[in-house]
C-alpha cells in the first residue's frame, strides 16, 4: 500500500461524520413532510420501531430469531457451496477433462439471476428451508468454483513439477502446492460469493417464509410499515457488512503469507 489510508481514529471520525450527516438529511427530509410519513419514516420512528420489535418482536417473531434464520440460511447455502465448490473448482483447474465436462454448466449458472429459477426450486425442493438454501447454494457455487479453477491456473507449473519429481503424490501436490497458491484467488471468490448469497437472501424469503429479516421487510412492505422496512434494511446492511468483515478476518488468518510469496 503506497499510502497509509488515513490513520484509524481520523478515518473513523470522518466516517462517523458522514454517517451522521446522512442521518440528519434523512431526518430533515422526513420532517419536511415532502414525503408522506407512511411512505418514509423518520430515524426517530425507526428507532421506536426497533424498541417495539425488541420488546414484542415483529408479528410474533423476535428480531433475534429472524436474524438467526436469515444468517443461518445464508451460511448454510454458502457453506455447502464452499464444501462442494472449492474441490470442484480445483478439480476443474487440474483436470482439463473435468473443466471441459463441467465448465459449460458453471458458466451458464454464474450469470443466471437467482430469482429466475426460484419458482422451480420451490417446486422441486418444497416450501421449507430446502428451496431457500438451494437458491443461495446455487448462487454461490459457480462463483466459488470459477475462482478456485482460476486459482489453480495461477499455480506456477514448475512448482508442481518440482513437487512431483520430489516424489509427492497427487493429493500431496494438491494439498501442499496447489491449494496454498490458489488460496488468494479462492478467497476473492468466497468474498464475492458471500456477498452474492447474502444479497439473494431476501429473494429466498420472498415466498413461503415464516421468518427471517427478508420476510420481515417484505411483510412490512405489504402493510406499508415504512419504519419496519427501513429498520430491516439497516439491519440487513449491518449484518451483510459484518459477514463480509468476518470473512475478511478469516482470510487474513489463512492467507497471511499472501503477498510474501
Amino acid at each position: 500500500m503506497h499510502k497509509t489510508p488515513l490513520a484509524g481514529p481520523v478515518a473513523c471520525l470522518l466516517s462517523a461524520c458522514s454517517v451522521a450527516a446522512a442521518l440528519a438529511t434523512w431526518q430533515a427530509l422526513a420532517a419536511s413532510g415532502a414525503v408522506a410519513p407512511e411512505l418514509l419514516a423518520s430515524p426517530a420512528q425507526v428507532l421506536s420501531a426497533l424498541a417495539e420489535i425488541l420488546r414484542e418482536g415483529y408479528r410474533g417473531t423476535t428480531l433475534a430469531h429472524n436474524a438467526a434464520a436469515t444468517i443461518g440460511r445464508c451460511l448454510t447455502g454458502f457453506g455447502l457451496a464452499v464444501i462442494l465448490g472449492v474441490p470442484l473448482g480445483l478439480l476443474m483447474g487440474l483436470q482439463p477433462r473435468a473443466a471441459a465436462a463441467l465448465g459449460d454448466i458453471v458458466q451458464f449458472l454464474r450469470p443466471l439471476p437467482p430469482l429466475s429459477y426460484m419458482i422451480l426450486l420451490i417446486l422441486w425442493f418444497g416450501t421449507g428451508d430446502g428451496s431457500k438454501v438451494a437458491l443461495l447454494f446455487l448462487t454461490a457455487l459457480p462463483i466459488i468454483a470459477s475462482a478456485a479453477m482460476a486459482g489453480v491456473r495461477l499455480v506456477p507449473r514448475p512448482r508442481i513439477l518440482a513437487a512431483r519429481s520430489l516424489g509427492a503424490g497427487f493429493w500431496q501436490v494438491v494439498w501442499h502446492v496447489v491449494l496454498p497458491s490458489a488460496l488468494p484467488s479462492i478467497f476473492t471468490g468466497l468474498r464475492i460469493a458471500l456477498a452474492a448469497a447474502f444479497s439473494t437472501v431476501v429473494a429466498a424469503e420472498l415466498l413461503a417464509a415464516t421468518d427471517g429479516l427478508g420476510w420481515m421487510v417484505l411483510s412490512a412492505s405489504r402493510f406499508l410499515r415504512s419504519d419496519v422496512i427501513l429498520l430491516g434494511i439497516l439491519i440487513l446492511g449491518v449484518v451483510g457488512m459484518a459477514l463480509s468483515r468476518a470473512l475478511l478476518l478469516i482470510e487474513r488468518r489463512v492467507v497471511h503469507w499472501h503477498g510474501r510469496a
Partner: protein
Amino acid sequence: MAAPEPPHLWPWRVGTIAVLAVAWVAATGSGLVPAVFLPSPADLWDSGVDLVTEGYKDRPLLDHIGFSLLRVFAGFGAGALLGTALGLLMGWRGWIDALFAPFIEFLRPLPQLAYLLLLIIWLGIGEAPKICLLFLAALPVAAVAARDGVRRADLTRLAAARTLGASEWQVFRHVVLPSALPDILIGARLALGIVYGTLIAAEIIAGSTGLGWMIVDAGRFLRSDRVFVGVLIIGLMGVALDRLLVLAEHRIVHWAGR
C-alpha cells in the same frame, strides 16, 4: 478464458450435455416427472416457438429482450462509470475513502429486493427505479475494485514519478490509473454479473416488459415451460455478455500494457 481447449477434450464437453439431455428426455418421457416440475423437450420447443412467433403478452420476444438489455446497459454503464470514478478518488485520497466507505460497504451486500418499495416511492414506476436498482447494484462493486486497484499501485514507480517532478494529476494519470486498470476491469466484469443477476428484481417493479418480468409472470401461472425458456435465454445471454466483456477487457489491457 485461457487458451482454446485441445480438440481431444470436446467429447467430454459434448458428453455432459448429451448425458443431461438424455436424462431430461428419459425423466420427462417416462412420465416420472410431471410437466409442471420439468417440462419435456417438446413442451419447451413449442413454448419457445410460440414465444418467438407470437411474443409474450402483446409484445414480441425481441422487445422484451431489448428492454432487459437496455436496462442492464444503462444501470451497468452508469454504475460502473460512477463507481470507478468514486473508487479512484477513494483510493487516491484517504479522507474521501473515509467519507464514502461506510455507504459503499453497507450497500454492497444489501439485498436489492429489500429496498424495492422505497425505489417506487422515490422514483415511481417507470424506467427510473429499475435502472436505479441496477445502478445501485453495480456502483459499490466497481468502487471497491477501483479503490483496491489504486492502492496496489507500485510504490517505487510512484516515488520515481514524483521525484521526476510530475504533478499530482500526471502521477494519477500516468502511474496510478494504468496500474489500477486490471482491477477496474475485473470490477467491471463483476459488476456486470451482479447487475445481470439483479435484473429480475428490477423488473418486478411495475412490470409488463422485459425477460425478467416475463419469467415472473409465467411463474405465477406455474408455466414451467415458459420459465425454462426464459431461464435458458437469460442464461445464454448472460454468458454472451460476459464473453463480450472479457473480449473488451483483453483489448483494453492489451492496449494499456503498452
